[in-house]
């Protein structure tokens, strides 16, 4: 498609309007983009929004896990997808923490993922302590199994026997230092994947596909994925291999909205904020710190995308003018 495109040259005064429009120098575009994606960060806007079905399914699934249960969380993101994944991770963890659900963290995506996840949990804990809520304790509430260099391998191993796959993995137990994760109370009697009520994959990489290939049908799987993974994940969602997912910033914004407003819960004005035929009333966490990356970045995104669309329009207008000129 790009075959016959001119490589944009700096504008020469002699150029006709059409030429100018079809060959804006890249660098100018870049400067404008930087402006458009920075300026709105300083102004506080809220955007009206309607959550996608998949996001509602994800929220409902998270809210359906019983307190005291232990869920698997595959945290496969690092700072390179911080923009989306960090917020998604925070929202998911906030829900689980508030509902007193225990978490087993493992990663197949990136060697840094476990550390990044733990840092985020530390931040969330600060927030909890500040609000006078109990700390979400390592070992008693969550253990970190660490990173598996071959995701395909580990996931496949988990399909047959989780305990065998996690064999030799250690985490910090208070007073005992590094201790075999399976000695943690939250992993008691959970040796097979079937013993876990839910597996949540928070990923910025392809590990999600592997998970579905190996584990679908053995345990309910939910995803939060980056926007780019959206379509593929939708594929699994549509064919019922996963129970729900949030994709990209939109999914995150949905999730934060759902946490604030719940599902089929009447808001202050008595109007139900988020309707769903699929579910009865699901409570939210009104008033609590639900707003995160989603609420901050989503409005800004609108400006950036607007710029993109504008650029495309300009290019096409220029092309048409050029054609006219040719005739």
């Amino acid at each position, binding site marked *: 498609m*790009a*075959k016959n495109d001119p490589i944009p040259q700096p504008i020469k005064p002699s150029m006709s309007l059409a030429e100018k429009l079809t060959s804006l120098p890249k660098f100018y575009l870049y400067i404008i983009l930087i402006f458009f994606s920075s300026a709105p960060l300083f102004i506080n806007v809220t955007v009206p929004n309607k959550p996608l079905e998949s996001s509602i399914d994800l929220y409902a699934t998270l809210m359906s896990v019983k307190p005291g249960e232990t869920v698997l969380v595959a945290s496969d993101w690092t700072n390179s997808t911080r923009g989306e994944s960090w917020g998604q991770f925070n929202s998911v963890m906030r829900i689980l923490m508030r509902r007193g659900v225990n978490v087993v963290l493992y990663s197949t995506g990136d060697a840094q993922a476990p550390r990044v996840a733990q840092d985020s949990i530390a931040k969330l804990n600060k927030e909890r302590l500040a609000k006078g809520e109990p700390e979400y304790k390592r070992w008693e509430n969550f253990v970190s199994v660490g990173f598996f260099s071959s995701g395909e391998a580990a996931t496949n191993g988990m399909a047959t026997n989780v305990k065998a796959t996690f064999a030799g993995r250690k985490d910090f137990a208070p007073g005992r230092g590094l201790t075999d994760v399976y000695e943690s109370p939250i992993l008691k009697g959970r*040796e097979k994947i079937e013993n876990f009520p839910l597996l949540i994959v928070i990923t910025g990489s392809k590990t999600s596909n592997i998970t579905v290939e190996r584990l679908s049908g053995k345990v309910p799987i939910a995803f939060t994925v980056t926007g780019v993974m959206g379509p593929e994940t939708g594929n699994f969602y549509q064919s019922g291999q996963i129970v729900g997912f949030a994709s990209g910033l939109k999914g995150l914004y949905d999730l934060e909205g759902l946490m604030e407003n719940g599902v089929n819960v009447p808001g202050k004005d008595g109007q139900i904020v988020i309707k769903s035929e699929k579910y009865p009333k699901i409570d939210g966490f009104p008033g609590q710190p639900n707003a995160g990356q989603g609420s901050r970045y989503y409005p800004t995104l609108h400006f950036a995308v607007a710029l993109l669309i504008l650029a495309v329009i300009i290019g096409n207008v220029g092309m048409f003018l050029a054609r006219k000129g040719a005739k």
Partner: protein
Amino acid sequence: MLIAEAVGQQYRETGWFGVLFTAILVTFILINIRRAKGGKDLYIRRIAGLNAIDEAVGRATEMGRPVLMVPGLSDTVNAIAVQAVNIFAYVSRLAARFANPILLCCYNAAVYTLAQEVIRDVYQEEGLLDRYDPDSVRFVSDRQFAFAAGVSGLILREQTAATFFLGEFYAEALIFAETANSIGAIQVASSTEATQTPFFIAACDYVLIGDEFYAASAYLTRQPVLVGSLVGQDWCKLLVLGSILLGTLVNTSYVQSRTTKSWDDEKAEYGDVSERQNSAKQSIVQQLATPLLSKMPVERPLDPNAPVEDK
């Protein structure tokens, strides 16, 4: 199934249907490889992106600038990387004949090993081993964006005239493509990740979509084995198509009969009518696709020296 009965329904867990289906696919491929080996010449349709390879290398030679190749970002050496390296072997062969410098950037040490081995062989076979510089096949980084930074740096500094991005590409795809485009290099690209293909389409001159990538080596080398396998793949695709169409007919008629059943039959069958909406969705085809996970009690001797499980 015979085996299933012989071993006490143990296929309940794996689902004999899946095994059978896969077996058929495998047979199709093997049969056709045999046919092709038997000297039956088989037709392959034109694939535009691949005809461009010669043009690209030729142009690079005219300009006396290097050809850059990236065999994707596979975590370890897998068939995708092998396929890419196979295509690059063809490219290097041309480049070697024209005495054109090449650059092959690897993301993974195992792939790097394979590439070294293969590309050197190519120069050897061409009797041009003196022209081969081991550093032309190099390991850049096995960290996605460090690799991206490194390769785009190379593209800009070496002013490559032709670039080939074939294999597993993720987000970094567009970084390569736009960088190469900005210096006017002619690009042939393909990602087995469908999600990256649109970006290649936007920024590259020729793009192999999805399966065309796997067809490439057959198309270029015309090895009977590869051509045969390609035909076999087509048979497999037809089988998939067939099953989809058949399944659609079955499901359609099934749902028709299910939903037009009288309520009494319904109650007799399901007790609770509200079951119906599920059962209507749970069509026969779905049941075949998702093997039963029902456990059956099996009498087994106990392991004397079994570890005491903390239960």
